[in-house]
């Protein structure tokens, strides 16, 4: 299969497009080198700078963290597709008017992220979820652009440009420019048979068959936000990868009555936006809303976050506090393990090369509150130095349920059982909180690394505990 190319079909800037390319190419390479659309830029190749942002199925994504074949069936808009009959998009106009452009290398990606933000805002307004004419707040703008680094402008005039475009879109009564519009012609071409067999399994069985046949020589790829970074560092060849995003069995957030089930392919952004999860897993929703920037949240999956087995993974501590179980499958077999037994160390889990995570599930608890707090090196796109999730049911002054889990202070995410029992066994008072704050420092086993120090991390556990407890229940 060394030199074999594959056909991939997608809708690109409103046109049905079929491209034949080497399966080791990323979407960014396909755009730039096969289609000569060089507006998307490569600043890092690791999903950090956002210069390669495109809009895929209505959401901004980093095209450097998507394998070319993952675009199969997708609707993609690049900076080149923003012009409409030669006219600039109002946001492009606004970038010029506001002086938001300097060296320009980040600008195509920044504009794509901005267009997605304005689209989302427009769609919400149309759906009545957002009251007109309330404008995007500065915080919303910053959050929407947090996945795009700019080193020239200090972002100030970029914020101005977003606001100006928003006003113009409103004034002109232009329904926010809908990137989905360009996708009106559904890509319904049949998937290339070779591509399907090697890179694009469409069912769980097809994916598990690949793993059963090749074991560790192949690796499942979903969001790609970790695995493609490792591939770029040469840890394994991109040809080993295959995409499991299209497998419907891995998707969905399902209310099973007494339990909730989340497919492993559910993305952080979906979690963050889910009303159902907000009701039953607030800690998880809060954590997923803090991961990366928009582009990373729109790609990274819950299953991927587990499989990557980082002790700093933000989605994991909340799952500990929900006492989630991990639903693992291989060809002809399946097993369910409590999440605390899933991880074995940094980058290590019990997942076998022939297995996939199908989903995660946890019991619904009435009146469950949840919170997630973390400290990072900056406000967005930060890997946690230390994180703490809490889920709790408080009745009167007593906790009926309380689970706390710490991230980035041990080889895996850990629960804080001593601290929990102090809080569970006594009334919720300032004194209990003080005792708990002391206890949690003893439960953390942090190390020194690039992001922080052992001592700092240990002490911050108690600061985060106070914040989490106050967020869960209000002050004692």
């Amino acid at each position: 299969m060394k030199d074999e190319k594959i056909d991939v079909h997608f809708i690109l800037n409103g046109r049905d497009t079929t491209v034949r390319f080497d399966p080791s190419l990323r979407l960014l390479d396909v755009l730039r080198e096969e289609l000569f659309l060089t507006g998307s830029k490569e600043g890092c190749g690791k999903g950090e700078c956002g210069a390669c942002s495109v809009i895929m199925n209505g959401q901004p994504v980093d095209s450097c963290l998507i394998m070319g074949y993952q675009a199969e069936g997708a609707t993609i808009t690049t900076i080149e597709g923003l012009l409409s009959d030669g006219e600039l998009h109002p946001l492009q106009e606004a970038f010029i008017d506001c002086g938001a452009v300097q060296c320009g290398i980040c600008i195509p990606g920044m504009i794509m992220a901005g267009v997605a933000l304005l689209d989302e805002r427009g769609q919400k307004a149309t759906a009545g979820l957002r009251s007109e004419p309330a404008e995007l707040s500065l915080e919303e703008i910053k959050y929407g652009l947090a996945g795009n680094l700019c080193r020239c402008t200090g972002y100030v005039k970029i914020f101005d440009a977003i606001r100006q475009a928003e006003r113009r879109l409103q004034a002109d009564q232009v329904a926010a420019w809908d990137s989905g519009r360009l996708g009106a012609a559904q890509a319904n071409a049949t998937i290339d048979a070779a591509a399907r067999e090697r890179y694009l399994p469409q069912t769980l069985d097809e994916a598990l068959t690949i793993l059963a046949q090749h074991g560790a020589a192949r690796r499942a790829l979903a969001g790609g936000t970790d695995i493609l970074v490792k591939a770029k560092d040469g840890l394994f060849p991109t040809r080993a990868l295959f995409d499991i995003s299209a497998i419907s069995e891995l998707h969905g957030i399902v209310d099973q009555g007494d339990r909730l089930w989340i497919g492993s392919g559910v993305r952080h952004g979906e979690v963050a936006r889910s009303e159902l999860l907000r009701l039953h897993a607030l800690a998880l929703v809060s954590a997923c809303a803090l991961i990366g920037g928009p582009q990373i949240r729109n790609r990274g999956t819950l299953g991927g976050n587990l499989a990557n087995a980082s002790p700093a993974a933000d989605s994991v501590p909340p799952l500990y506090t929900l006492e989630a179980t991990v639903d693992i499958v291989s060809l002809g077999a399946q097993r369910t393990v409590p999440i605390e037994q899933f991880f074995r160390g940094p980058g290590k889990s019990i997942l076998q090369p022939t297995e996939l995570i199908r989903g995660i599930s946890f019991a619904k608890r009435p009146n469950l509150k949840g919170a997630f707090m973390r400290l990072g090196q900056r406000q967005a796109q930060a890997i946690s130095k230390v994180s703490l999730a809490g889920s709790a049911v408080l009745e009167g002054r007593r906790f009926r349920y309380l689970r706390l889990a710490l991230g980035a202070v041990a080889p895996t995410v850990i629960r804080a059982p001593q601290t929990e029992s102090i809080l569970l066994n006594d009334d919720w008072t300032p004194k209990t909180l003080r005792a708990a704050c002391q206890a949690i420092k003893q439960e953390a086993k942090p190390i020194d690394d690039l992001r922080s120090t052992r001592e700092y991390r240990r002490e911050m556990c108690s600061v985060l505990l106070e914040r989490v407890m106050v967020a869960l229940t209000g002050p004692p």
Partner: protein
Amino acid sequence: MNIVGQRARRPDALDKVKGTARYIDDMALAGTLYAGVLRSPHTHARILRLDTARARQMPGILTALTAKDIPGKNIIPLIQPDQPMLAETEVNHIGEGIALVAGEYRVAVEAALAAIEVEYEPLPPVLTLEEAYEQQRIMAHWKIRRGDVKAAFAQAAIVIENSYHTPYQEHAYIEPNGMLAQPDGMGGVTVHGSMQCPFYVQKAVASILGLGLNQVRIIQMVTGGGFGGKEDAPSVPAAMTALLAVKTGRPVKLIFTREDDMTVMSKRHPGWIKYRSAFTQAGELLAVEVLYVLDGGAYATLSPAVLWRGINHAAGPYRCPHAHVDAYAVRTHKAPCGAFRGFGEPQIVFAAESQMDLAAEKLGMDPLEIRLNNALEVNDETITGHRLAGSVGLKEVIRKVVTAADWSAKRQSYAQSCAGSVRRGIGLAACYYGVGLGSLGRFLNPAGANVLVSGDGSVTLAVGTTEIGQGMVTVLAQIAAETLGSPMECVRVLPPDTSQVPDSGPTVASRTTLMSGNAVRAACLEIRGRMKPLLEGKSLPWADQVRLCVENQVHLAAQGWATPPKTTYDPETGQGEVYITYSFSANVVEVEVNADTGEVLVTRIYSGHDVGKVINPTTGEGQIEGGALQGLGYALVEEHAVQNGRIINNQFSTYIIPTAMDTPEIMPIIVEHEYAWGPYGAKGLGETPIIAVAPAVTGAIVQAVGLRLFEIPATPERVWQALRRKEAG
């Protein structure tokens, strides 16, 4: 004036928002080969054996080269002849190039690099600034001997003495370095690339290939950020690709990965400053005694010049009658440090401004008062004994920023709110910046411009300085239109091409508006002068003016040449009129410090600048906002982690720069004290915005939590540690 001073739109913005602007990686030529560089894994080692025979034979590989294949001199020509393009016998830092490969495919190049056989004998490295200073591994030394320092300290009411440390800073331009070289078919070579200084690149390529300057043509592509990082450093990849192109007869492209870029390309020098200041009881700065040491890395590159600018501004923008300063750049076995916005000033200004705050504190004065007491004014002398004849807007800048910030009220109210977890503080710092290269770089100082008015009234400018995002194209088009009397829309600024204009020096030192602006203006004045007799008494639209002149055979093209006023310098005393003029700046910064976590949140930056004359307020504000945020990164988060001489945070996930969510409110303030020799009175603005941010931040932290940091960045860990030590007594 109709056009100068207006918020004209950037002519380069349209292509940039459409994604059609062409950066080097967007350029494709048929038959282009990929270049690969074999880099040293050692900080310091002898090369015992280097064999490319096997690599040369590999499929898809056209050539594999070492230093032996260099036809000219294996030296990057700059200040000192110490840096080879490819290491020959010894490697001196991790990532130093030792061999080159060109091949048809990326994978082939990777495989060939792996097939090059190298044997090293590791040698003991010197890895820290302190070690290098102790061993006197000095690559440059400058001094100031001014007044009678001993006597001044003897009569001082107070003496403040401290030691300061500042970190590496990465430029973190979003476009990595890249070059594409091709043989020109006439025995020469043409190189396109991302760069600030085409003429540096030209000299390097010519010298390494043994070609005449007229055989080496350098064209700047649209460049995705520089900040000093693309001043001299691009000469190395340019020469590498040029050598490969000449040897293979094919176009050769080299685009850096982010990791390679951060590992080997230049960065801001880590600094160590021992600073003693003497003040009178009235808060008058009497004298400074300073030791300023920069970690230059393995090769001198621009370190002597960076150090020189630092020492010339060692006391900050204040009168300082007595000074004894020694500045050293020392040699370590790490990647060379070089130019970075501010160019040796941010390090020493962090120390100098902290000293000012400490003196104020000791004397019971307001940080504002002590600065106003000492601020340079017209007819005052700088630390180099330069008597300032005019264009000194420092006091107005300081007054404007403190007024905008409501300094006194906030200073008072924040002082009373020092309980609870989140505590607020406000800080002030000022700086000045000698515009242009000064007497040390005087041979590079002139700039040229060719201006061509075509028969349809369109105007073409060719200049030798570069657009790197700062707004040069816009500003020069405004100056040309203003001077010619044409609409700005008629003016097109060509990409810099060394074959089209005289060597105009580098695009650095906040000199571009001043130098290229004057050259453009001179050429336009000449053309206007030739047009004038025909237009006497007529009021015609521009296009008709041009038509009339063309019909009358008027020569509508001219070359402008700007040579700056004389500067002086005495290396024994460090005294002289070292720069032609100075820009002045002050920042007020507001912070919220979380005493539990040590997190410092900067909420507002009021950033004021005397720029002489602002040619375009929008691009001017852009420089201020961007510089302020880059300065904020320097103050709060940015630093390189180095283990055994290896930079371990060499990507954007680990080298942290501010995101949109880290951006405070930034209030740019522009003050205009016109500079007589400047085009329409303009001085320079590129660098002042970054210089005095860090000391304003640390000054604000002092008010918030009563803690003075002598080392930046003010990371939560560092602030929290210091708070704990303070509480422990």
